């Protein structure tokens, strides 16, 4: 794998992360942003590297995974940056409401510890604008979701471009 192969997923992943951060854009194509980025990254790879057709399924999956990974890293980065600058986020804002809600239940040890972790995360974010645990949790969940959506996008992209090439050749 050369550097040029990483470039398309990197650019498209970054683009997807930017778009998922812009609220107005997210309203239009929320769950389609990452799959579309994977489709575009395959197209970009073909244009930059003059890759051969037909695109192999393995390559499409690889591009989907890479686009999803980059999108996850960048979107987590943007989230962390915004949290650092504002010293708050929707998690911190929702926590008091959750605590008030949960007060009616008798918590067992596990839930008590979870709540303690949540409180610590909220305290860290308010005090320093950063919580390592929050970063870790966000990164893992973003990687999980974006990689899956990226793989689907990669496969759809592969199918679209292979079909187009077949039509052109015929």
């Amino acid at each position, binding site marked *: 794998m050369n550097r040029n192969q990483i470039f398309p997923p990197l650019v498209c992943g970054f683009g997807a992360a930017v778009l998922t951060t812009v609220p107005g854009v997210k309203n239009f194509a929320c769950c389609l942003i990452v799959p579309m980025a994977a489709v575009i990254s395959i197209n970009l790879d073909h244009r930059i590297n003059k890759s051969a057709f037909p695109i192999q399924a393995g390559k499409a999956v690889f591009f989907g995974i890479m686009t999803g990974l980059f999108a996850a890293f960048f979107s987590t980065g943007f989230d962390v940056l915004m949290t650092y600058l504002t010293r708050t986020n929707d998690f911190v804002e*929702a926590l008091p409401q*959750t605590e008030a809600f*949960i007060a009616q239940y008798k918590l067992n040890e596990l839930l008590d510890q979870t709540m303690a972790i949540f409180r610590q995360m909220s305290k860290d974010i308010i005090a320093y604008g950063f919580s390592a645990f929050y970063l870790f*949790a966000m990164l893992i969940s973003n990687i999980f979701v*974006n990689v899956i959506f990226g793989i689907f996008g990669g496969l759809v992209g592969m199918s679209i471009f292979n079909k187009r090439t077949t039509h052109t050749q015929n």
Partner: protein
Amino acid sequence: MTSSGSYNLPVKFLTNPAGKKLLLRTVLFFAVLIWCAGIVYNSVLPESAYTVLSSVFVKKIYGAVCHQRIAKTFKFNGHYFFVCARCTGIYFGALVVSIISLISLQKLPKKMMLLYISTVPMLIDVISTTAGIYNYSKLIALITGIFFGSAVFAYILAVLENNFVDKSV
């Protein structure tokens, strides 16, 4: 178990195309089922400390793929779903097709045109509501989402089967 042959039965089944197809469809069905269950569990399950606490993070997970605007989200049992009406439609459309694909193991058509056609109602709805031609309706968003989600899932399944099941024969 009387012979080593009986041990090989599941292996033989999963290495032939029909077995692989069934395995792939089953895995996808459970994946979509778990994803859809995650969207609604907070509204469907009886309220408890577990659901309240877990919803804080689960909402964040779904936030990666949906704007989650309250005005565009269904509410059930006093709790909002974790994704908007259109996304709910997309994922439940996929779930319906995944169930159908499990019941009828027929080969799915890999028609690009079907994918394009299913996008049209959703695009018209998005453009019309944005342009103010008519007001946003959760029901229309749900229905157009179901069309799109079912077509996309059928297409992805066909692509997966073409590339990972049929080609390995």
